[in-house]
């Protein structure tokens, strides 16, 4: 009985101890908090700067922007013809003639002629050649092409007209000739007070008098390999071709040749559009074209050809000799896969055998206007969110207000610019890019952060900006 009283006492003490905790748990204090939102129109809005190559789409309130920037491209001459002459004023200044014939001009072309009595059966040769300086190295290890349009008055036996790889200090040369009963020939002329002709190779060519043909004569100075080709410009067809090889002569210049052997009617050929080049003189090529892009070649407003690149940096070529191997009003245009004109060259003289190259250009451009419509200044910076890119040496972006911020770099660091003040009026975002290859492209997401106090204090607002560079 005594033990039970003691237990009751302990239970009573424990009950008293728990009372204060129960009281604490039941104390709640309530403070009212009121958050009133009074939205305002954006004090800073984004606008299209209306700059070339920049296309901007802003959100309905001007609080976001999507920017497409087109990398500027340029077309430049990568490898031009070694020499060319339109012969528009006859035989050019600096050319030297020898032989028995005469040279003159004929409606914008060079005319030559050999006629009269035969001379001891050795024939009569009339040569005009360009010897001002060596035009190419005799050790060059590829084909060098010489081409001219030739029309002759006589393709009969013992009558030739052609073009020559000529020795500068001698009267020796290799010549590609048409004539002698409609043949295409590669011949060699050696002169030791008297001339000696050797036909190295020949092919039958169905040519007629009074028509212009494109005569192409190619020679590899290192190996002595030679190639003669005759094309019909009206059809583009190859009429005849023949090849030979000889290293007896080391020509470094070029010339025109008219030859007659035997009596009878003379021969009076006309030459036009002489081209000496390292590449096919009947074509013009443009290299470094991105896949899916389209190149076009015009002469004036006449479209000569249009080709779409099938490789990442492919070369496309246009056969031009049906028009002329020297385009007086040549225009090259390159369009991207969206059919947007990306580069243009001309109108200018475009010579067959030339190689042009398309290259992306480094640039710095204003890509977005940041207009502060408020009566007070703000403090802005750019923060990179995400990016992907290929084919660039560098991409940089910054914001310019009272001063210009530091740059964001792609790839970072830095991923954030320094802060600049955006006064009332127009500030802007600037892009600087340096592509390293054609087809360079990038996608960049960033934020324009601005605040009412320096250090992004007060309230900080973020506008999303997406930039596509291609």
């Amino acid at each position, binding site marked *: 009985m005594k033990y039970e009283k003691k237990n009751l006492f302990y239970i009573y003490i424990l009950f008293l101890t728990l009372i204060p905790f129960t009281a604490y*748990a039941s104390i709640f204090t309530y403070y009212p908090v009121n958050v009133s939102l*009074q939205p305002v129109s954006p004090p800073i809005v984004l606008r299209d700067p209306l700059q070339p190559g920049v296309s901007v789409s802003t959100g309905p309130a001007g609080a976001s922007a999507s920017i497409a920037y087109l990398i500027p491209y340029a077309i430049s001459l990568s490898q031009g013809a070694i020499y060319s002459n339109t012969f528009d004023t006859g035989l050019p200044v600096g050319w030297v003639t020898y032989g028995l014939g005469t040279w003159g001009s004929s409606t914008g072309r060079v005319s030559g002629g050999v006629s009269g009595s035969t001379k001891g059966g050795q024939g009569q040769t009339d040569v005009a050649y360009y010897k001002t300086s060596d035009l190419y190295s005799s050790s060059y290890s590829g084909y060098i092409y010489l081409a001219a349009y030739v029309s002759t008055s006589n393709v009969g036996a013992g009558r030739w007209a052609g073009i020559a790889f000529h020795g500068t200090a001698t009267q020796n040369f290799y010549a590609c000739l048409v004539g002698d009963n409609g043949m295409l020939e590669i011949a060699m002329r050696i002169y030791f007070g008297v001339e000696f002709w050797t036909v190295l190779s020949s092919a039958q060519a169905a040519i007629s008098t009074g028509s212009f043909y494109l005569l192409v004569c190619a020679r590899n100075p290192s190996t002595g390999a030679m190639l003669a080709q005759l094309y019909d410009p009206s059809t583009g067809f190859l009429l005849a071709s023949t090849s030979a090889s000889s290293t007896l002569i080391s020509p470094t210049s070029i010339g025109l040749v008219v030859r007659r052997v035997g009596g009878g009617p003379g021969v009076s050929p006309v030459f036009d559009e002489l081209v000496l080049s390292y590449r096919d003189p009947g074509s013009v090529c443009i290299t470094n074209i991105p896949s899916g892009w389209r190149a076009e070649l015009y002469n004036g407003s006449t479209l000569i050809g249009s080709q779409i690149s099938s490789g990442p940096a492919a070369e496309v070529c246009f056969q031009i000799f049906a028009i002329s191997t020297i385009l007086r009003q040549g225009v090259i245009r390159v369009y991207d896969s969206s059919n947007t004109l990306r580069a243009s060259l001309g109108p200018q003289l475009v010579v067959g055998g030339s190689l042009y190259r398309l290259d992306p250009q480094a640039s710095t451009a204003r890509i977005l206007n940041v207009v502060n419509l*408020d009566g007070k200044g703000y403090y802005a910076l750019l923060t990179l969110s995400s990016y992907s890119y290929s084919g660039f040496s560098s991409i940089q972006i910054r914001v310019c207000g009272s001063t210009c911020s530091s740059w964001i770099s792609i790839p970072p660091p830095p991923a954030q610019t320094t802060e600049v003040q955006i006064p009332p009026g127009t500030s802007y975002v600037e892009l600087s890019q340096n592509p390293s290859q054609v087809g360079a492209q990038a996608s960049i997401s960033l934020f324009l952060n601005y605040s009412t106090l320096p250090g992004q*204090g007060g309230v900080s607002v973020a506008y999303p900006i997406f930039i596509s560079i291609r």
Partner: protein
Amino acid sequence: MGARLKRPALALSVALAIAIILSYAYSAVFVYYPMNVILRPVDPPIIFSPGSNANQNDLGGQNNPYDSNKIDVNTGLQGTVLSLTLHPTYQYNYYYNLSLIVNNDGKAYYITLKVKQAASLPPDSVARLLVYNAPSGGDEVADVSLLSTGDTATAQIPAGGVWRIDVYIYIPEGNTLPSQTSAEVQLIYSPETGVTPPIVPP
């Protein structure tokens, strides 16, 4: 015989009347125990105080002459009320360090935020009241949407602790901005946890 029958009935009626009278007499008995309630008000152990961006420039302003909107922060005379007036715009708005929650007591308290009345913004908008356990940086201890009613989880503010209140607002473009909308929130604190606070005022 008839008179003999009436007498017992009369006696029963009298007895019943006496019993009823006696019962009324019993209900008039009152017993009084002494009970003393002493109220000793104290200074609020938890108070609001203005943050570093309180009453600084907000977005926009009035023209002619120009008068910038302010980040209005009012914590009352004793710091037991918090009133915020903000001027957000489209896209992402972050108001940092608007107010501080200060525990001046020597013991910890448990804090809950309850949104009693939600604000209204265009569809897909976001408005959150965020609490961090330090005046600068710190870890998030409470995050409540101002666009729907509900409670945050309870978090403990230690003795002498200082918490920071930020507000994050996102309003997508393409919607008309309301001129004003408000959220009513309660900060509820208690020295003990584990009990659901009653709704006050009842």
